[in-house]
């Protein structure tokens, strides 16, 4: 069954001048149709302004399409009465870790979502414990969020969404403001959710290294889906990716250059191990 189904979705941002008059509109997303199956790990790539974050906000009904429809778990996000069910089944983690933590203690923040849903107190505690354990932050449950590192804060945010028992989590550039270690922790937590809890994960990013574990990759450019397929399929087209102003992972780039200079290497090498193995075969 498809958890997310978008059909010909377009979205216009309306620009205002200083007096608030309408100046014109910018099409941020144009005619995007995609479907995501339950349990998939999806990555959406794109450089700044490619419309990937705008698209992500449609899945949580924070934005409604100007044209087209978005169905989340069989419900139309355009219908007013579906909005809370949609937000409960598709959770969202944002870019800035400081601006999405509401509680003054880690465990209170994780409990915020379930509180809003009207879950009984006893069950809230169970959900909070279980979610904090799933992202490896249980030891910090009594801490103040202000004293955590960026990566830890993002894991708390993920736990906060997880406690609402969503079917799908949208991570909107969760690692953009983190250092490399924090980035690794967050991606590890997201993969664990997908593997262990079977939550559908939609990861929006512009770091190529985070994408190689995805089941499917969508590359966006100018509001449209420019490429899609498995990471291997997408990364085998190094020249096309460069055209879209995206960096390919270093290993893939190296393999591509070696291939160009005459070594018989296959397309779409994603990891160092793969490359060493293939190079071994060449010798």
């Amino acid at each position, binding site marked *: 069954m498809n958890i997310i189904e978008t059909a010909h979705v377009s979205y216009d941002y309306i620009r205002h001048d200083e007096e608030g008059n309408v100046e014109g509109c910018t099409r941020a997303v144009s005619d995007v149709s995609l479907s995501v199956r339950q349990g998939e790990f999806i990555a959406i790539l794109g450089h700044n302004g490619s419309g990937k974050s705008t698209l992500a906000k449609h899945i*949580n009904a*924070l934005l409604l399409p100007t044209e087209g429809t978005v169905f989340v778990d069989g419900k139309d996000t355009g219908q007013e009465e579906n909005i*809370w069910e949609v*937000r*409960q089944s598709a*959770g*969202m983690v*944002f870019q*800035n870790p*400081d*601006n*999405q*933590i*509401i*509680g*003054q*203690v880690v*465990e*209170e923040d994780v*409990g*915020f*979502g*379930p*509180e*809003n*849903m*009207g*879950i*009984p*107190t006893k069950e*809230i*505690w169970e959900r*909070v414990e279980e979610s904090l354990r799933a992202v490896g932050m249980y030891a910090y449950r009594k801490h103040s*969020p*202000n*004293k955590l590192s960026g990566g830890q804060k993002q894991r708390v945010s993920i736990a*906060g*969404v997880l406690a*609402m028992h969503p079917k799908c989590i949208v991570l909107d550039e969760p690692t953009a403001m983190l250092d490399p270690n924090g980035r690794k922790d967050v991606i590890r937590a997201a993969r664990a959710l997908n593997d262990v809890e079977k939550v559908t994960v939609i990861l929006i990013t512009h770091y190529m290294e985070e994408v190689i574990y995805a089941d499917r990759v969508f590359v966006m450019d100018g509001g449209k889906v420019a490429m899609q397929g498995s990471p291997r399929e997408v990364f085998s087209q190094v020249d096309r990716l460069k055209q879209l102003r995206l960096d390919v992972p270093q290993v893939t780039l190296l393999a591509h250059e070696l291939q160009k200079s005459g070594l018989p290497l296959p397309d779409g090498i994603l990891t160092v191990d793969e490359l060493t193995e293939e190079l071994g075969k060449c010798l």
Partner: protein
Amino acid sequence: MLRDITLGQYYQTDSILHRMDCRVKLVATLVYIISLFLVDNIWGFAVAAVFLAVCIRLSKVPFSFMVKGMKSIAFLMLFAVVFNLFLTPGKPVVAFWKLRITDAGIRMAVQMAVRLTLLIIGSSLMTLTTTPNHLTDGMESLLKPLKKLKVPVHEVAMMTSIALRFIPILMEETDKIMKAQIARGADFESGNLIQKARAMVPLLVPLFIAAFRRANDLAMAMEARCYRGGEGRTKMKPLVYRRNDYIAYGVLAFYLAAVLAVGRFMPI
């Protein structure tokens, strides 16, 4: 470090008063303040002082912390005492030039000093033993009846707790902007008051813009997590009265009766 600042003046330790339900403490503080204004003789103040001393002992907060709170209002207190001393009509005791000190004036001044001292120490005892978070929780729960009068109690409590959460973050931000502006040659130190105030503009404008941006993000994050006001919301940490809290209410009622009996009806 800037992020280590504590808000309010909460003193972290474990005592009966710290564990007590915040609603009891709020009510008790209110009752205590009212009782101080109903009392008008030395015995009444003695009872109030003894009650406070016992509470301080139970709270395990060092007395020096209470005195810290007094320093900030020393000026106000001096003001109240001087005015009462010179401006109360009555039989003159000392008189020089145009100033007269009357017997009633001396009495009023002493009463005012004692009253203010007890009041400040009493209310700082509450803030020392209750986290700001609990305070907003307690307020929300105590003011619930006002919801019928369309007072947005839940919203105010939610705003207060968000404000408390963002104070350290905005302070850090201020620090960052200040350093950035100093690096570009801004001068926040020298000049007279007006020049200093004008120097704050390049600090405040970016700070406000950043704060609005954060508010926008936070509102979106709250909506994404199904926040839709206080209706139909459950509590992760509901306030529940325990045995000790009922006992505390009993003690409070007994104190009020005692202080009124002694302070209002016993002759001086």
